[in-house]
């Protein structure tokens, strides 16, 4: 059977994917940018828009990192405002489980779900660094080994809060004077080593019951967390074969948690460059990559792996001959990607070998290892490639991250979406009203996931 593709739009982030120097690049903070971005995505009938979050401005070499876009709005607040200027598109926000408390986050998501008539989604992320914790009264330090345990407990507790109202309590019968059918609604009690709370939740059940839950980690632990508790995995884009392996692995874990294959969607992040011809697209893609990796940015990337000050290094020369400093990364702070460098010395050797074999300068090497877009080509080839990935079970769709704010999605919506619609693999209009409708996910109702998470 032909699978239907799910597509979403990632508001351009505070990283070097976003080309802020382009003349068409608009504000990252004015609401008009968000409104325009959401309008384009909704015109394309996309499933949802996606916002990332970071709770401390990044630093490198003990200074605030100034080469990328810096600054963003509060996630919940801007999503609530976007609910006012859109009608159907889902609203996905990244919210940290380390620097928040379940009662507050649950009432914010339940409120957002009410205010958007059932379009809220939560990308649950974890963190443990004391660096970010310096912005919070609760402090930040959480042992790294505890972060998934706390995230699981946080999500479990939030689900208990969402489920604490069944949905039939408010009757509001003016004649009899009965507002509530239940004198003590929203009762909950959760006691574990992370959260010791009890009382009554104060937001009645929202249209989706629970917001759609996203999870992003791709470690073994992260995959289990997703298989147990998430509705969507927000993963990294890869080759068809690697995507298929990831897809098979994660979907294969679902039965262990009492779930079926269609209860968890896999949606990698993806970038794209479109052209009228393949050659034009390839040239444009190279231009974009060079804009994304300026000489200064190339050095910063180098430092993130090398974990040392390389500000004197020539970006147009070969890679450094010294090896990375191993151990805790002290050069770049507030940047999750440095944790991807699990064996910096081995990676440096690989990069050096590649640079020597292909005669690449430092900057060219960085362009090669960091900057390649997921989909490059004419609208027809990009549509065909996306369809191929989905029909061959390398993904269920993609979260598209354009490199221009806010208009970078426009051409995709105008030229690629119609081709997918012609193929019969993407909706021509919204069929339901909630994000769960768009994603084909069932309503959740105090279900097995609470038990599996607790277990």
């Amino acid at each position, binding site marked *: 059977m032909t699978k239907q593709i799910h597509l979403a739009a990632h508001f351009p982030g505070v990283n070097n994917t976003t080309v802020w120097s382009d003349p068409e690049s608009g504000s990252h903070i004015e609401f008009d940018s968000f409104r325009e971005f959401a309008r384009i995505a909704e015109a394309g009938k996309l499933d949802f828009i996606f916002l990332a979050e970071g709770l401390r401005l990044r630093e490198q070499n003990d200074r605030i990192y100034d080469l990328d876009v810096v600054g963003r709005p509060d996630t919940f607040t801007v999503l*609530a405002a976007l609910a*006012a200027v859109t009608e159907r598109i889902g609203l996905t926000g990244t919210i940290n489980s380390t620097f928040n408390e379940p009662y507050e986050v649950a009432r914010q998501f339940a409120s957002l779900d009410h205010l958007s008539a059932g379009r809220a989604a939560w990308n649950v992320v974890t963190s443990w660094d004391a660096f970010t914790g310096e*912005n919070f009264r609760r402090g930040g330090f959480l042992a790294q080994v505890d972060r998934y345990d706390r995230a699981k407990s946080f999500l479990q507790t939030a689900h208990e809060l969402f489920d604490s109202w069944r949905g039939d309590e408010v009757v509001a019968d003016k004649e009899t004077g009965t507002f509530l059918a239940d004198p003590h609604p929203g009762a909950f009690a959760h006691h574990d080593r992370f959260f010791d709370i009890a009382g009554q939740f104060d937001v009645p059940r929202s249209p989706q019951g629970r917001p759609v839950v996203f999870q992003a980690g791709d470690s073994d632990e992260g995959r289990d967390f997703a298989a147990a508790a998430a509705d969507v995995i927000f993963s990294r884009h890869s080759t068809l074969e690697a995507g298929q392996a990831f897809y098979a692995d994660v979907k294969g874990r679902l039965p262990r948690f009492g779930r079926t294959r269609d209860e968890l969607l896999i949606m990698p992040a993806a970038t794209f460059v479109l052209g009228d011809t393949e050659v034009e697209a390839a040239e444009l893609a190279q231009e974009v990559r060079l804009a994304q990796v300026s000489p200064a940015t190339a050095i910063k990337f180098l430092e993130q792996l090398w974990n040392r000050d390389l500000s004197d290094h020539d970006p147009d020369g070969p890679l450094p001959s010294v090896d990375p400093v191993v151990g805790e990364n002290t050069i770049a702070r507030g940047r999750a990607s440095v944790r991807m460098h699990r064996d910096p010395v081995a990676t440096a050797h690989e990069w050096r070998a590649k640079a020597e074999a292909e005669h690449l300068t430092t900057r060219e090497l960085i362009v090669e290892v960091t900057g390649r877009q997921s989909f490059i080509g004419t609208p027809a080839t990009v549509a065909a490639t996306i369809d191929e990935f989905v029909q061959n079970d390398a993904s269920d769709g993609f979260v598209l991250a354009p490199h221009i704010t806010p208009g970078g999605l426009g051409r995709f919506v105008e030229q690629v979406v119609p081709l997918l619609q012609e193929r019969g693999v993407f909706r021509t209009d919204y069929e339901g009203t909630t994000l769960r409708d768009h994603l084909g996910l069932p309503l959740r109702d105090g279900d097995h996931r609470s038990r599996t998470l607790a277990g």
Partner: protein
Amino acid sequence: MPDPSSPLHLVAALDGAGWHPAAWREPGARPTELLTAGYWTDLAQEAERGLLDAVTIEDALNLQSDDPFTPDDRTDRVRGRLDAVLVASRVAPTTRHLGFLPTAVVTHTEPFHLSKAIATLDYVSTGRAGVRVQVAARPDTAANFGRRELPPVDRSTAATGPLVTELFDEAAEYVEVLRRLWDSWEDDAEIRDAATGRFVDVDKLHYIDFAGQNFSVRGPSITPRPPQGQPVVAALGHAEGPWRLIGRSADLGFVTPTDAADAARLVAAVRTEQAAAGRSEEPVHVFGDLVVVLDDDATAAADRLARLDDVAGAPLRSDAHVFTGTPAQLADLLAEWQRAGLTGFRLRPAVLPDDLERITRGLVPELRRRGLFRTGYEADTLRGLLGLTRPANRYAHA
């Protein structure tokens, strides 16, 4: 100091179906829609048609109860509500001039989160945001967070006990953090300098390095300085602790006078705290809070209240004066209390939308006839409507 002879300011206080516990049973009430965006949009747009300065939206981090200190398990009252900051943000893009002062609890929450939330509300409303800060002394609220235990409230000293003093001192620190974070980006920090590849000038981003009795926060904010520079900070006070908070930290205080003489006393109390905090030269508004039951004649208004009380099973009790009468009589009272030093009023409609519409369609024209209220919106920001200038950034070099 705001000029006492200038037109007065009006804020409508929105809460559920209205401030009378039986409000939800009135014919015009929409008790099944209290959790929908449409309900709040209609109320805000009505307030804007009346050219009001702003609306407040009540909130708390616990289920409502008639008892101010413990849950009451009543089934005949409105229960359940939405996060007020998010309601304000959902409604703001559907309005153009109205200010928004959602309530935010500052006892169990993170100032870093609230600072960026209100800054973002300021962005989505293009300069019409504020926040009404509120402490939470209830033990059941604390139990929802589980991070600190609060003792059972001593009802005899509920407004003045040591816990209250402690919570309001903490609130003052909290507001200091909000304000520093709003200033932690200079207005022109974003430079987009293609020549050097720098998006921001890091010399214009500032660590706030706040270290107080209750917490420390490093900064800078992740959100650039909001359009108003400093969104409006408001607080309600019935006693010395909150008056001190208003005097030290707020742009706008709400007090609850019983008559004109009491209004003068309360204004003086706030001014004393303002002076003690060294802020005598700064404009701080003091608004009087009133619950209002309005009708075409005084008897009809009194009858409405009697009927509501009858439905509720008890006379309305409130921390604020309950006014019943005509819009003209209310205008008389507001003018008299204004002469006692109040610069505006926060009116709590007993029934929504009925008493809100009587404010916007009855009281407002009446005040306007007397030259006491605006005939059009004269500013695009909430600070502008309140006659407050856009403040300089505390971190910017002259």
